[in-house]
Each structure stands twice: as C-alpha cells, then as structure tokens.
C-alpha cells in the first residue's frame, strides 16, 4: 500500500510522493505538528502552526470535507461573532473566508451598545468549502493526507515537565506510522460517533462519514475521562417547495461589516445579498412531536428539562439547560410559537436551511411536522434531520494552552472538548495550533486570559469548570464584556501574539498598528478640545449637556 500525500484543491492538482515499503510500517514521515481532523478547529490549528514555521500535516478521513459546515451555513452571532473577530486578530482563516463567501451579512444587537454587537453572516456552503480548501493548499508548510487515525504513539515523558507520557506520532488506518513532535486532536463529533434517526442508529460522525473508533479507545487507554454529548441538525428543504409569500422578510445590512480586520469590505455587493425569511411553529407541530415521541430515542432524555416534574428517563445523564431541538423546545415550553429562520444555503443552491428545526424523529414524521409551519406546507425534504451522539473529553484534563495534562505534546481543540459551534471550535483550534508550534520549538506557551478576550473566557471556562452540556459562547459569560468588544479584538491580541508566537503575518501587524496610531491620534485630538459646558451646549444643542459642575458617571 502506497502512502499517498496529496493536496486537494479546487482545480484538483495532485502531487504524489511515493515510497516503497517492504515489510515495514514506518512510513518515514516526520512532522513537527500533526493535526487530526479537518474541520473548523483542525484547519485553524494546522494553518496557525504552519504560519509559525512548523512542518505540519493535516490528516482527515475525507479530503473533500475540509471546510464543511455541518449544520447552519452561517458564522457569528452574539458572542460567537466576538470569537470570529478574535480568531481573525490572531491571523486565523474563518473571518476572511466569511467575508469572501458571505451571502447575507447582519450586525445583531445594533441598539444595545458596541460591547455586545454580534457580527453574523450566512455563507454559501459550497463556496466556503472550496475557499477553505484553496487556503489550506496555498499555505506553505501545510501538508494534507486522507486517512483515518487509529492510534496515538506515545513514549516516556520528558521528566522536566509534568505529564505521564509524551506523544510521538499517530498510527493511520492502514497501519502506517507518522511521527510528530506535537499532535492536535480536532475530531469534532467523530469520536465513537453515532447517528440517530428515530429509533435507529448508525455509527457515524456526520451523514455519510464513518466515526473514529480506534482513537476513542486509545484515549481511554491513556486514562482520559470521557463523556457523551448529543446534538442534532434540521432537515434540508428544497427551496422551490417553500412558499415565501406571507413570511417576514429580512434583508442583509446595507453596509455589511466585514469580519476581518484586513478587509475594508465584503466580497458580495450589498444589493446582491440573499434574503432570509422568518416563520413560526403552530400547535400542530407540538402534536406531531408528542405523537412521535415513542419513536424518537434521541430526544427522550432531553425532554426532561428543568421545568419537568417527573423523573428523568436516565437520571444519571446530565440535562441540557437549553433546547437543542424543536422537540425539546415544544415539550419544555409548550403552547408557544417558536421561531424558525429559513436561510439560503448558497447563491446557486436549491436548498433552504430551517434554523431552529433541529429534529431526530423518523422521516415521515418530519414531513408531517413541516406541514404545520407557515410557508412549509408543501415542503419537500432533500435530506432528513438527524441526531448525533459522540464522545467528548473532559476539558479539565487540559492546560490553558489546550495541551493535555497527561500526555505531553498532545493537544485537543474543538467539539472534542465539549463545545458547540464553528466559532468555538475555530477559537480553540488557533490557540492549540499556536501552542503546538511553540511546543515544538520549546518556546513559552501563549495563553489568553479572561481579561483579554472571549477566547480566554472560553478556554478558562472549559479547563476550570468542565461541561455538562455543549458549551456555547454568550456575552454574559464575560465579566469584562465592556472592554472585550468586537471592534477592538485586534488592539487586544494582534501585537502581543505577533511578539510571542511568530504565527502572525507582518501585514496584519502593520494594519493593527496603523489603526492603533489613528485611534490614539483621535483620542488626543478629542482631549485637546476643551470648552465650557455652556459653549458645548451652544455648539451641540441637540445633545443634553448638563451645566452642573459634577462630572458624568463612571
């Protein structure tokens, strides 16, 4: 079996490196950093390590899935938007790629103050994926291989540091061993993943993709404690079967705000943005959910939310505080109309993504349920909704650098740590990638504190508190919310990361410094302008200026 190492690009440029092996399993491949999994965490991690100068290998089960958005074709939102901005400030990928491939941009929370603005964009699924794959291809020192990873290779630890073992590489599905000084696991929902449809379940990490089983066992053998989490996704609906007539229309912003600090504007023409529509559930939806409850394994456990009076079906399982599916929404909060956002999947896509309608009931029931939603009476399902259950590793087993405490050089990032969301994954990925690189150079690690960024809040919450439900970022998690604004992520992070990590490009630092100097110019100018309150009142009659001597409140 020839080990193949090739780069999958939009224009299918293949490059073979062949090595004849006879009777040996060692492929002779040696890298600085190996990243397992090509999702949002994996791509950021691999790119960050490569930017720093590490020989990096990204291993994924299916090359064509690099850059896939598993659920909602969107990035950002309130709290999540902060994360995307911070990843960009650290020279990450997702912000720039959203600007390139976004089809509907909106800043949420406009009226609530700049600390809590939520930058959000719907992206074209296919364009995002190809843009990501192009980016990965074009990143120097970043190699990609299609393979499954079945085992971790470890040896005795470096005694000068804490840890029980030290990682030396991975073993692939075909038996080949790839050596690496650092390994980052970003396997998402693939660890012993199981897909749920109604009452049946099938092994898998995502529809059409096999789970990772061997790796899960290896981690147990190494003594890592795991838990099990579940999530789900809605059905995809054919656009032509949707009646948009009476639904509330939402337009993108007239002047979209780009995610990336390097972009003055987004790629799409504001007037060309696609529309989103809003609809609601009706009582019929509740009936369908109740009637099919018996045939819906996945949701039986989480229907017993905090308001329930009867015992949980499996009392040992943690209950999620939020509602992961439409089933849990209507069961926990009956008698209400729940929002359903109909989001376009792409410029040329025939599919609509109904956000808020994650469901795991049998397909016939899904069809029946949609009938009760205005606009979806004749809806045609292109792909059914389903649930996913997967192993995650207790993130309290990690240092704030995302390196595991037990195994030196082994890092974990993304949904494997119990988070949910592309943004949370990307944020962990870039930090893990930076630290894996620093680890291979024996340089001091790079951490972000709660006072410096939402990434800091995220990692600190995970590593100190652990999770009982998939962790999602909200602004209320940040104590220092008023200084951690989306608009100052670059001022908070870029310069320091540039000095401490080597993973930030020169161009980015130049931009950040330029903004910093203009800011301080502006502030000096404002401070130099000193007039009496009387004079100000004359100049700005529409502003309420108090003429008392007391200063404004803090």
């Amino acid at each position, binding site marked *: 079996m020839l080990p193949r190492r090739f780069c999958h690009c939009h224009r299918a440029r293949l490059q073979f490196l062949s090595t004849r092996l006879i009777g040996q399993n060692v492929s002779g491949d040696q890298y600085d950093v190996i990243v397992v999994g090509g999702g949002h965490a994996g791509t950021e991690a691999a790119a960050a390590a490569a930017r720093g100068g590490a020989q990096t290998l990204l291993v994924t089960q299916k090359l064509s899935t690099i850059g896939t958005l598993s659920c909602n074709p969107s990035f950002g939102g*309130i709290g999540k938007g902060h994360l995307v901005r911070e990843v960009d400030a650290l020279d990450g990928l997702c912000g720039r790629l959203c600007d390139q491939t976004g089809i509907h941009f909106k800043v949420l929370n406009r009226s609530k103050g700049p600390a*809590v603005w939520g930058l959000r964009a719907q992206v074209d699924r296919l364009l995002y994926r190809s843009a990501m794959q192009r980016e990965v291809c074009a990143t120097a020192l970043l190699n990609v291989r299609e393979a499954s990873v079945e085992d971790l290779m470890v040896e005795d630890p470096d005694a000068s540091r804490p840890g029980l073992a030290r990682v030396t590489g991975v073993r692939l599905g075909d038996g080949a061993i790839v050596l690496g000084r650092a390994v980052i696991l970003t396997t998402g929902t693939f660890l012993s993943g199981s897909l749920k449809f109604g009452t049946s379940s099938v092994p898998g990490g995502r529809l059409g993709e096999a789970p990772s089983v061997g790796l899960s066992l290896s981690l147990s053998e190494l003594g890592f404690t795991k838990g099990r989490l579940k999530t789900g996704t809605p059905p995809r609906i054919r656009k032509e079967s949707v009646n948009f007539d009476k639904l509330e229309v939402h337009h993108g912003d007239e002047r979209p705000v780009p995610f990336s600090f390097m972009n003055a504007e987004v790629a799409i023409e504001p007037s060309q943005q696609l529309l989103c529509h809003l609809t609601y559930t009706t009582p019929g939806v509740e009936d369908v959910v109740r009637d099919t409850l018996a045939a819906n394994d996945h949701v039986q456990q989480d229907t017993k939310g905090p*308001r329930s009076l009867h015992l949980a079906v499996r009392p040992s399982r943690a209950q999620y505080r*939020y509602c992961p599916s439409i089933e849990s929404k209507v069961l926990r909060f009956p008698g209400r109309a729940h929002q359903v956002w109909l989001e376009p999947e792409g410029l040329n896509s025939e599919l609509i993504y109904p956000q808020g309608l994650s469901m795991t009931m049998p397909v016939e029931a899904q069809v029946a349920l949609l009938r009760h939603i205005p606009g979806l009476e004749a809806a045609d399902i292109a792909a059914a909704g389903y649930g996913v259950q997967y192993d995650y590793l207790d993130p309290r087993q990690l240092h704030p650098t995302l390196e595991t405490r037990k195994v030196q050089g082994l890092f974990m990032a993304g949904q494997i740590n119990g988070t949910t969301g592309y943004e949370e994954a990307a944020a962990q990925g870039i930090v893990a990638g930076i630290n894996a690189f620093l680890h291979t150079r024996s340089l001091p690690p790079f951490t972000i504190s709660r006072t410096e960024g939402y990434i800091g809040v995220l990692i600190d919450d995970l590593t100190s508190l652990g999770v009982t439900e998939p962790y999602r970022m909200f*602004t*209320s998690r940040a104590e220092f*919310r008023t200084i951690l604004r989306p608009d100052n992520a670059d001022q908070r992070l870029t310069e320091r990361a540039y000095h401490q990590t080597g993973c930030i490009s020169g161009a980015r630092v130049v931009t950040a410094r330029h903004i910093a100097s203009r800011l301080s110019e502006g502030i000096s100018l404002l401070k130099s302008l000193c007039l009496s309150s009387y004079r100000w009142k004359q100049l700005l009659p529409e502003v309420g200026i108090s003429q008392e001597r007391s200063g404004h*409140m803090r």
Partner: protein
Amino acid sequence: MKQGLPPPRTAVLHSISDPNSGELLDRGLLLWFPGPQSFTGEDCAEFHVHGGPAVISAILQALGSLPGLRPAEAGEFTRRAFQAGKLDLTEVEGLGDLIHAETEAQRRQALRQMAGDLGHLYQTWSHTLTRALAHLEAFIDFSEEENIEDGVLNQVDNFVRQLQMEIHSHLHDNRRGERLRSGVHVVIAGEANAGKSSLLNAICQRPAAIVSPIAGTTRDVVETALDIGGFPVLLSDTAGLRDTHDIIEKEGVRRTRERLEQADLTVALLDVVGLLEASNKLTHLLFSFLEDLNVRQKQQCILVLNKIDLLHKKELNDLHCALKKEEDLPTVCWLSCKTGSGIEEFLRVLRAELEILCGNPLLGMPSLTQARHRSHLHKCLEALGLYEYYKRADMALAAEGLRSALASLGRITGKVGAEEILNLIFRDFCIGK
C-alpha cells in the same frame, strides 16, 4: 480510643490520656460529629474537660503532639464553617456579636442575625437582582436570534425599582442596629454647677442601670458604659459650657462640643432656680440654651431641670404651667439629684428614648448592624442608579450596573453567584442550540 469512635452526637464519659505516654490527663465528655453535619462541615470532635489551666494545657499539648493537628487560629472554626457554606458573612458577624453581647437587646439582635435573618433579607434581594440581571442578559444575548417575550425590559425595571425602595428604607433606619450594637451615645451637658456629675452618679447608683466594665475598648475618662433596660449606653459627663480664657477649661469646652456633635441623645441639664429668675424671658432662654447644645431635633433630647428641692411648691407649679404651653420643647424631667426625687421617672423616660433609638430588635425588618453593610448597600444603590442612567443608551453598560450591584450585595453575605444567572435564563426562556 481503643473501641473506635463513640456514636455520633452522643455525649460519652471517657478517660482522656496522652497518646504517647498513656498517662491519664482527665476524665470528661466526648462529642463526635462526623461531617457534613457539624459546625464546620468537617469531622469534628469535642472534648469537654475540667476547666483548670493545667488540664487544658496538658490536653492541648497532647493534641499538639499528634501528627496532622495544630492549634486553630483565631476565628478559624467559624471561617471553615463559612467556607463550607454553613454560615454566610452576616451570620458570622452575628455570631461574633452574640459572643460580645453585653445587654439583653444586643443579645436579641445578635441572635436574630446569627439565625440568618439579616442574611436572608440580603439573599432575597440578591435573588431579585439575579433575576433582573438574568432577564437583561437574556435580552442582550438572545433577543435578536431567539424569541424572547416582549416586556422583558419592563420586568427588569420593576425589579430594580422595587429593590431600590427596599434598600432605601432599610438604610434609613436611623442607624438603629448599629447603635444597638455599639452603644447609644448619651451626653449630659449644661452649664457649670447645674449638677451634671451628680446626675451621672445618681444614674450609676440605681439598680436599673448596671455599670459594666467593658474590656478592650478605649474610652474617654469621663465615659461610662451602662446597661439601661437591656440597652447599651455610653454615658458621658462633660465640662460646663461657658466662655472662659482658661486654657484647660477651653479644651474641656471644646471636647464637650465634640461630644455633642456625635451624641445620639443629649441630656440637657439646667438649674431650675435659674429658670425662675428668667420669668418672661423663659422660652427664649430655654431655646437658646438648647441651640447652644446643638440639639437639632427635640427627639434627640431630654430636658432635665435639677434642684427642684430648692423651690416652693407654688413656684414649681407656675413653672410647670409655663413650660406646658411650649409645644416645641423636648420631654422635660423635673428632679433633684440631692433628694433623689424624680430620678426613677427620668430613667423611665431615658429608657423610652433608648427604645426609640434602638428599635425593638425582634420586630420588623432586621437592622443592619455594621458600617460595612451600610457601605456596600450604598454602593449597591449607586450601581442601580448606573443601570437607570445607561439603560436607554447602552445595554452592556446598564448590565454592568446590575452586575456591580449584585457584587456589592454579594460582598455583604460573602456569596456571589455566576452560573446562577445562566440557570435562570434557561429556566425562564426557551433558548435553542
């Protein structure tokens, strides 16, 4: 013990021996409290021994020789109880106050506080504020993507307003609780030779007024600590107020004025003979005298007219009638320190005033007892004001106001909860993936 531990929470009579030498140290009662049902939440053993210094010393030495044991620091058991969540800070303070209580009323107030009444009040406020904050956070984090009901912000406003009112009235309690805890400052003031020292002595000699030597507090030479009717009183005698060029006397007058500034209650003492001579300028004399003593409100004063033994009955009656016509005078007491007449009545009036000043510690809302409480509550109100100021312009800053208010309340009881807010959000609102 060779037979193992005694049964939990049962007093057992037992020999207590040195673990190293086996020598018998004492025979006493043992109480074993396995955690978490103990004072500190940890396993706890109590040795009740004969109280002689040699016994205690020998047992402490023996215990100290065991590995893993060391003498507790001052207050350490209570600290552990606090850290285990058995007591909140106000209960810890109540316990301290209970130990130091010298009067009945102080004991009652401390006991109520230690039982958690004050803590409970602040906890209730914390809950209200947490709910308000949760609603506001839900509005910030979810209202544009999920379906948060209308009127959420109105609810927040209502919670905040309710809280502001309650805290305000709690603070405007005329410092009852603090006064009861530290003692009511009563100052006897008046002209020279009106009989101030005699009055002080007369009070101190009465069985109704118990003079107590309170250890550990620094006090002016002329201040006496008393328990009057269960209320703690710090009674000050003062130098006579008069214009003088004598330096020492001037200093005395200055100190008197200082005391009067801080007085909770002023006993304004006058020689009744001088009143008689004033005849139709009586009212003027009285009011200018009171003003001179810095008496701002009649409630803070008892007007005492001394030396009634020097007047005829008719003269007394005339004066009685003249004063009765004045409406703005404080309560008047007629007495003679020399004969003792009228002193009991004066003490009765004094006790009534003390009760007003200290309140009944068992009735109504528990009183705040420390400057610390007052200071945090003021900060809390200030922070709530920030919420009001910012709520239309910047939600995040308004939320900071509520967070700050919650932190201030939390500092009183020692509890500040963060995950609680998220729990509340998810309980009240339907939030999706």
